[in-house]
């Protein structure tokens, strides 16, 4: 099971609770059971059968047909040092990536049709029957999570297993995870656990551990946060993700400035024309 035995949450998801994923990559064994469980539950196609040569990762990245993705990061191990050795950097790590279900979600703000909505559990849900395939959400996602399915033109991403949550179940990926690397629960409860875990790891000499949860940027925090080792960029996570709409004001300002300048230019053109005519 994924919630702590003491958690009031363990009997299922109560409607109205704000839920989250806390993915602790120091517990991930790279088995990809989350990917398979996700695809089985959501009935998603395979990505094709391409051997990538990127360690053991052949599904590559999150996309329209991969809503959970385990990233593999290889370094050069030395004899005597396992991946859990204290006072050493990680040498072979795995992290299960997923839609972050942002507090301020770029995709949701960009969607012109209302296909993207905020659910009762705080997640961001894409309704495929309303999506018109404009792809604004694809470019608006600061994490590159949303992708258009080239076959039917619509965008797809993690549903946060809203259907399962509505039925009182935990998401498929968290249920399948054998090592409790993917934890699912009430968001504040998980924030506490992430804080405790980080402290524990630092005490243990796992110095490169960090919690990835960009609260200080315009994203304003995420509903799927991570405990990682090393630089988040190694796991394809931007160190300072921003929602594109924060550029709206400066964008409009620039546009207004440009328009003003253009108007002034036009006026000048006419003036100089008149001047010329005078001459």
């Amino acid at each position, binding site marked *: 099971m994924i919630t702590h035995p003491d958690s009031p949450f363990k009997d299922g998801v109560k409607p109205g609770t704000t839920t989250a994923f806390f993915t602790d990559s120091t*517990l991930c*064994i*790279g*088995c*990809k*059971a989350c*990917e*398979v469980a996700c*695809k*089985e539950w959501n009935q998603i*196609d*395979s*990505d*094709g*059968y*391409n*051997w990538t*040569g990127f*360690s*053991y990762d*052949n*599904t590559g990245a999150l996309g329209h047909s991969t809503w959970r993705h385990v990233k593999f990061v*290889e*370094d*050069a*191990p030395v*004899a*005597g*040092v*396992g*991946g*859990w*050795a*204290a006072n050493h950097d990680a*040498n*072979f*790590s*795995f992290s299960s990536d997923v839609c972050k279900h942002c507090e301020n979600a770029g995709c949701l703000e960009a969607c012109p049709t209302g296909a993207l909505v905020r659910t009762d559990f705080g997640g961001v849900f894409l309704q495929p029957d309303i999506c018109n395939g404009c792809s604004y959400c694809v470019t608006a996602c600061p994490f590159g999570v949303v992708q258009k399915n080239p076959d039917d033109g619509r965008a797809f991403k993690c549903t946060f297993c809203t259907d399962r949550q509505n039925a009182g179940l935990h998401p498929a990926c968290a249920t399948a995870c*054998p*090592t*409790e690397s993917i934890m699912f629960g009430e968001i504040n409860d998980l924030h506490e656990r992430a804080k405790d875990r980080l402290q524990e790891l630092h005490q243990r000499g796992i110095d490169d551990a960090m919690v990835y949860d960009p609260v200080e940027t315009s994203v304003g925090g995420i509903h799927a946060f991570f405990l990682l080792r090393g630089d988040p960029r190694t796991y394809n996570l931007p160190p300072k993700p921003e929602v594109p709409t924060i550029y709206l004001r400066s964008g409009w300002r620039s546009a207004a400035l440009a328009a003003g300048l253009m108007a002034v230019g036009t006026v000048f053109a006419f003036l100089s024309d008149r001047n010329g005519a005078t001459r």
Partner: protein
Amino acid sequence: MPSLGATYGRGGATTAQQSLADSDAILIMGSSMAENHPVGFQWVMEARNKGATVMHVDPRFTRTSAMADIWAPIRAGSDIAFLGGIVHYILENERDFREYVLHYTNAAVVLRDDMKLPDENEGVFSGWDSQTDKYDPETWLYKGEKKKTAGGTQPGHEEASGGHAQDRGGEAGDGTPYEMDMTLQNPRCVYQVLKRHFARYTPDVVEQISGCPKDVFLKICEALVNASGPEKTAAICYAVGWTHHSTGVQIIRTAAIIQLLLGNIGRPGGGVMALRGHASIQGSTDIPTLYDILPGYLPMPFYKEDGRSLDVYCEKHTTETGLWHDFPNYFVSLMKAYYGDAATKENDWGFHLLPKLTGDHSHLGFTLDMMEGQVEGMFIMGENPGVGSPNARVQRKALSKLKWLVVRDLVEIESASFWYDSPEVERGELKPEENATEVFLFPAASHVEKEGSFTNTQRLLQFHEKAIEPPEDCRSETNFVFHLGKRLKEMAAQDANPIHEPLRAMTWDYPVEGKHEEPVVDVIMREINGYTTADRKLIGDFNNLKADGSTASGAWIYCGMYPEEGRNLPRAKEAHDFLGHGWGFAWPKDIRIIYNRASARPDGSPWSEKKALIWWDAAQKKWTGHDKPDFGPTTAPDYKPAKDAKGVDGLAGDKPFTLHPDGMGWLWVSSGLKDGPLPTHYEPLESTSKNSLYPKHESNPAAEKKIRSYNDYAYLRDERFPFVLTTYRMTEHHTAGGMSRSLPHLAELQPAMFCEISPELAAQRDIEHGQFATIMSPRGIIEARVLVTNRMHPMKVEGKIVHQVGLPYHWGSKGITTGDSANDLLAISEEPNVRIMETKALVCNIFPGRRPRGKEALAMLKDLMRETA
């Protein structure tokens, strides 16, 4: 596992996976547990979070190493040198758990004067016969121990045996009488012999043979030893990375010795965890698919030896003291389950109806027989030898020599399609139009389409329900075998030929249900559990089985899974303690940690509060605690047996290993193992390195290479094959791929056959990452995509750099993703005790680029073979 059987008494894992969470150190070796047992690995992670040291010893840095504190790289095939080094470290520094060792092991037993160790005898133990290439184990007996004479050869040393009956431990010999030196000073006592034998396995020698840096090796020794003692326990986990060697049984023996010396057996967080290959592999030896044992590890009788009569058979396998004194109870109850009323006292309970073994009918043995055209037909169920068995080229060709072949599987596997779609067809070796084998492919029901039980790695029976009816013609194994048996019985009834008498006598009256006439599994399980023959009342304890025909039991060790009417313990799913009691049923008697008498001191009190498991309650005069006692429930710690006491009553109250006739854990195995009483480092049958310890016998002399024109070997240090080859599996696939290569969501995760090599080897052979490479052994030629990774290390062995090539073995010509089979490169060889092949350490050569197509591939291999070594 005969090694665990010979050392402790039973072949099964000694502990429960849940108990790993209580370990202070866990050594994983011969296994990538995180990858191949990810669910059980959660308890390793739990232990790690509590502060346990997790160690992984492996030729590759794997996903398990990524979870470990310490990763120790070794050259594939050097396991005994490494583990022998740990034994040496413990003894040299006197770090053994002395009180445990003195009372619970045979360390103090004095051995015969004419026994010689390999160091004194040119690399072999005394008793080696170089004419027959076999051991006579007589000199290995305890001083004064009687040699068994009934039934021909010493039990466990039969010519044709596969040795699995030693899983029962007690068969090895009587072990009595014996003399002991409790000071451990006698140079002929086991402790001193052990010390002498392992004296050469110093840290320097370990580094020289295994390539593992000395300081890393010592780190592991210290972690293991520091996590053992009254207050602490360490566990060892292994899988087929140990078993699949020509010295596999002895590798596991070395670990078993370490755990006895450190006092880690029978205690929470300790033990040897034998991780089984897949869902019911433990079950398939308990109720065997093996040729040499009957259910419950009762040995198959041998023609002309113990097969002559019931008396000879029982005399050979019954011990005076210990649990195997009750051997006839289990055997007669089995015969009553098999033959019902046709088994009577007058006809020796139908002993004449049982088949008697005449030779090596193991999978590998009969494959060679098939190749020679000596086998007419074959059933393949739950296996895919055309991909998953060694020398897969020969496996597929052998199938073509059959008249008929029945394959039952979920999909059409390579073992069914070999005659029209295989590398042999591509190369013109097999021609579909000339194929004479009639292949019958039957669709099988999957595990959700049938009910029954799995017996997993920790001897745990778990019941699974049928979720949906199998579609169309798909049927369960139970259904297929039951209806096949029914038809055979009908045919036998029409034919008076005495050869059919066993078929006629067999009880085969299970009721059926549903439209597919599915036999009722519950009734079969009741029969396996056992009942009284008069009124069919369930028997809750195997101690109540009798040899007088009044009881029947299909597998005595499973007795108690149906303790009484209306209770099916394998179906139970409410675990209520840290050992998982309440979830499933662990044989024997729902004991989760076996030999748990050893969790208490000789006087019956726990070694420590922290590691208390069971203890003697003097007021109530019984054993109590967190587990069911694997001991007489009311046998007091100070109990001393009367001189002529038999069975378990013949063992004192401080003898935890009740299947052994002396009640002790066997550091020294006086009989029952065909390749020696102690482990010795031998090189693999094919090796790039020399054996500097025993140059006269470089590889296990008792192992069989089965050399044939189609099963050829490289020479020692053959320059044509300069690299070590090792095979393994990935998390994403299931063994030979029949259950995973056909499923999109699994196939996409590992979509192509690939090899793993180090950057150094890639540079040396001009091989590019992401491209193809061609890999050859004396048996075959395959191609694979190349994964160049720093997780593969060149090793310095005997002063020379050794490169290793890693190959997963999941691919074949069928399924969504296809590829060459690693098993095409492997040899059919037989470890002497269990007749298992060596898949983990062989030799190969590797070249850049794809292999040629068609006949030219074989020509390329021939060219390489022609180069003189």
